[in-house]
């Protein structure tokens, strides 16, 4: 069958009341504020953009070196260098809004009050469609991962954001949470509309010649294909534990990886580190995703969510 006659595949998904034209979302911290890849990436394949993490005030971030390549992955300790909410609204948002994409702001606070204040400031910002609550950054001393490891703190951060906004609230969960299913349930009870996971895995590397850590911050976050199996497992566990839509991410480099997450229970996926490697990942992933759906007779990509089949039981052996 030629492409022209091939049946159309509906790639649209609904997440927390948002309609995404494709299930592919640009992951926070890997796609700038949104328009940096203009002219290079295929924005038509992008269902939504999760913007660079925002604090209330601008931050310098960690000293360099900030990144280190590992087998099939990378370590980073950027430490959320960002422009603060004022400059985001005044300088970044207008050009990102012009892209006409679903935009998810990603927020991080060093206190519960700061999370609440950010939610209120973003609530009526034209062109912001959802709020991803970063409770899982491994590279900041205040806020970040300490909120993501403790279910009480994660729930409270979700609650204050929920009270501050009518926008969809999407806590981004840490792989360091000991019980990811329990964590997902706690933020669900606290008013979350969806969850996204996983953030990077706290990790480190050492230069044996100089005997120094590879990163100035010593510890960084591991991302890229190296973390994918961990992420697929946690998405599966989170999706089983909650009724919330799950946005899965971790080293997705193409359609096969994305489908793995969808089958494990994700309603949409984020592409992060692979933006750095191959800006063509968007066009290729969308096109291969369509081909997969045609090949498998799947009319709507949302039908793939949680469609993993159980492993068949071993045949009984007669003795």
């Amino acid at each position: 069958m030629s492409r022209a006659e091939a049946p159309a595949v509906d790639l649209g998904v609904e997440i927390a009341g948002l309609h995404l034209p494709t299930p592919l979302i640009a992951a926070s911290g890997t796609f700038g504020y949104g328009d940096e890849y203009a002219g290079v990436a295929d924005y038509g394949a992008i269902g939504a953009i999760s913007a660079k993490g925002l604090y209330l005030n601008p931050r310098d971030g960690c000293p360099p070196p900030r990144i280190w390549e590992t087998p099939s992955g990378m370590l980073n300790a950027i430490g959320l260098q960002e422009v603060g909410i004022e400059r985001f609204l005044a300088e970044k948002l207008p050009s990102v809004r012009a892209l006409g994409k679903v935009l998810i702001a990603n927020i991080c606070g060093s206190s519960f009050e700061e999370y609440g204040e950010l939610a209120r400031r973003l609530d009526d910002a034209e062109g912001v469609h959802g709020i991803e609550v970063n409770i899982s950054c491994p590279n900041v001393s205040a806020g970040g991962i300490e909120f993501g490891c403790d279910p009480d703190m994660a729930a409270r951060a979700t609650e204050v954001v929920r009270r501050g906004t009518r926008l969809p609230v999407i806590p981004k969960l840490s792989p360091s949470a000991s019980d990811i299913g329990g964590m997902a349930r706690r933020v669900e009870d606290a008013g979350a509309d969806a969850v996204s996971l996983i953030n990077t895995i706290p990790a480190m590397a050492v230069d044996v010649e100089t005997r120094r850590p590879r990163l100035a911050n010593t510890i960084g976050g591991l991302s890229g294909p190296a973390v994918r199996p961990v992420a697929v497992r946690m998405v599966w566990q989170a999706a089983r534990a909650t009724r919330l839509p799950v946005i899965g991410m971790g080293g997705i480099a193409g359609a096969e990886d994305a489908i793995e997450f969808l089958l494990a229970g994700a309603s949409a996926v984020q592409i992060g580190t692979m933006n750095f490697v191959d800006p063509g990942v968007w066009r290729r992933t969308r096109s291969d995703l369509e081909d997969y759906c045609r090949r498998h007779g799947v009319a709507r990509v949302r039908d793939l969510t949680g469609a993993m089949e159980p492993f068949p039981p071993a045949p009984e052996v007669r003795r």
Partner: protein
Amino acid sequence: MSRPAAPPRRDLRARLVRRVELSADAQLLRFESASPSPALPGQFAMLRLEGGGLLRRPYSYCDLDDSGDPFRFSLLIKEVGVGTRALMRLRDGGTVSCLGPLGTWFEPPSAEETAVVVAGGVGIAPFVLFCRRLAEAGRSGIVLLGGRRRPDLYLREEFERFGMEVRCATEDGSFGQRGYVTELLPEALADATAPRVYSCGPTGMLLRTAELARRAGAPHQVSIERRMGCGMGCCLGCVVWAGRRPGDPPEYLRSCTEGPVFDADAIAWDRDPHPL
């Protein structure tokens, strides 16, 4: 030479067509690509190839020919890790994915100024194209080349071919003056009328060049290399502690986007350089 606009960025397939061994661990690789990617001197490309690690690696455009089809460009490669090793072992006709041109570029000297280039080791890479453009504009300049030993003075003849006045220094004295390339700079600054300094090379060399140029009151642009994740301004891995303009308060600027070419006076050298 008027100030050009940033050329458009593209991700191209490029094919290796020629390899010149420059020393035991350095090569000049020439690539061809079907569509042009006109770059300005000082700009770079992010390369990706099979077996070359997960992340792309940045390389300055060493030279390029955008006069016809196919578009040709060359890169100077010195073996330092997985990425450079894979490039040096790429077979003839093998392809790479090449995202560029990226970053800022060297401002050409004004009609009254004389270009004084200070380059160490593979730091000469951006200056072949720079000097080609100078020669095309009927200009000359002084090029100071430094290396540990004679084989590290890559592509010296190219600069001479472009009509540059080339002066060399080697640490072991095997060619030119014995010592660091920066020891040649005071005399070059004195010889040149209205010198404008351009530098690229090891951190110590850049620091010393910045000090000497500042003392002589000469404007100075420096190309700074940092480990990069994306080259597109998104990963924030490659930052330099610098002001946007000389006199501006320093902040972490991206060497891929606000750089790699910076005004030397805008860099807060006391907090930067950091060890790579």
